[in-house]
């Protein structure tokens, strides 16, 4: 069975939609309440980043398998301005929008795997996986 969903993010309510579908998929895969909360929060952060910095983009959520391990993959992609200095955005407290600056480093801590691929003026793709234990 192939569980997946893709949500376009254009306004604030799309963030809610993205994380709801994330929560549903996490539930279906058998994640516990704490991990469900972690996954939804991570989706919320990534979707909000798209909304705040790129204006619009996509959040794809799908089930992944690796050597018998089951997991949930979030892929947030946009064609926004890109990230200038990736090392900097992964520092706690760094923000360009007056927020807390805990978003991306927070997502990294909430999830198990985390990669950023970003080119200036072309866009950003963030992929993150949480494995089912």
């Amino acid at each position, binding site marked *: 069975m192939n569980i997946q969903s893709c949500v376009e993010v254009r306004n604030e309510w799309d963030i809610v939609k993205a994380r709801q579908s994330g929560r549903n998929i996490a539930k279906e895969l058998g994640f516990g309440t704490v991990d469900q909360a972690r996954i939804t*929060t991570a989706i919320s952060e990534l979707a*909000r980043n798209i909304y705040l910095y790129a204006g619009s983009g996509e959040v794809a959520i799908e089930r992944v398998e690796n050597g018998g391990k089951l997991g949930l993959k979030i892929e947030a992609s946009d064609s926004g301005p890109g990230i200038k200095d990736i090392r900097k955005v992964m520092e706690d407290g760094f923000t360009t929008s007056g927020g807390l600056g805990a978003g991306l480093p927070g997502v990294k*801590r*909430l999830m198990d795997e985390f990669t950023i691929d970003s080119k200036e003026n072309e866009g950003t793709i963030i992929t993150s996986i949480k494995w089912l234990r």
Partner: protein
Amino acid sequence: MDKLVIQLLNESRERIYTRWMDEMERVRDEHRLQSITDRAYEETNQELFEIIYTHIEQNVHKPTDRMTEFAEHLMKIGWRLSYITQGLQNFRRIILAIILDANQSNEKVFAMYDEIDRWIDPIVNQLINESAKNWENTVSIQKVALQELSAPLIPVFENISVMPLIGTIDTERAKLIMENLLTGVIKHRSQVVLIDITGVPVVDTMVAHHIIQAAEAVRLVGAQCILVGIRPEIAQTIVNLGIDLGQFPTKSTLFKGMKSALELTKRQMIELE
């Protein structure tokens, strides 16, 4: 409308009807109407066809009341507007084909073409406009309803108020929370405000940021905030995110928060003997 067009339409009514019904059957899936029984679908199609034909006879360039009512009724029971617009478009396509078949001169065909376009487009447009207006209306009503539910500050004891937050917090609501909190604190002369987040499904950095700002603003007007209703999974995500909520006291439940609020205002709950 041109008499010739009307005549043509009336003459070939049967032909148009069968072709149109075929066409509608083909697009049924697009409108997500698979769950409707064949018979109901056919009857509705018949009715729509009937209405379109009355339109031709009455020769009006806007939806008749019957058409509007029909559309409203369908939308109410969950059909899509695209069903009707597509019905009209299919109808146009079929009669154009029939006109072409009728062996008229090119100019005549073009004139008829033009006439039919001018006849159908306003009907489609107005139907779409009306349904869009309906939607906008519903959305704005719901927005107001949501605002009313949004963020009440409830004075519980003298100097102690509670603000229960339920549901998703977006930027607009966050603003409202801040306003209600500050005006309420001053109006009720609260010394302690309990913000209850039991009903908030996700606490991400933005929500946390808004809560921190609200608590700071409350501090500035001379009162104190206690954050209550932090569920265990929320506590873990907050820690994972690395959010510092250390500037103000937090409690797991409203009850515990209330106890410490009473302590802060030099009171306590006792059991009567």
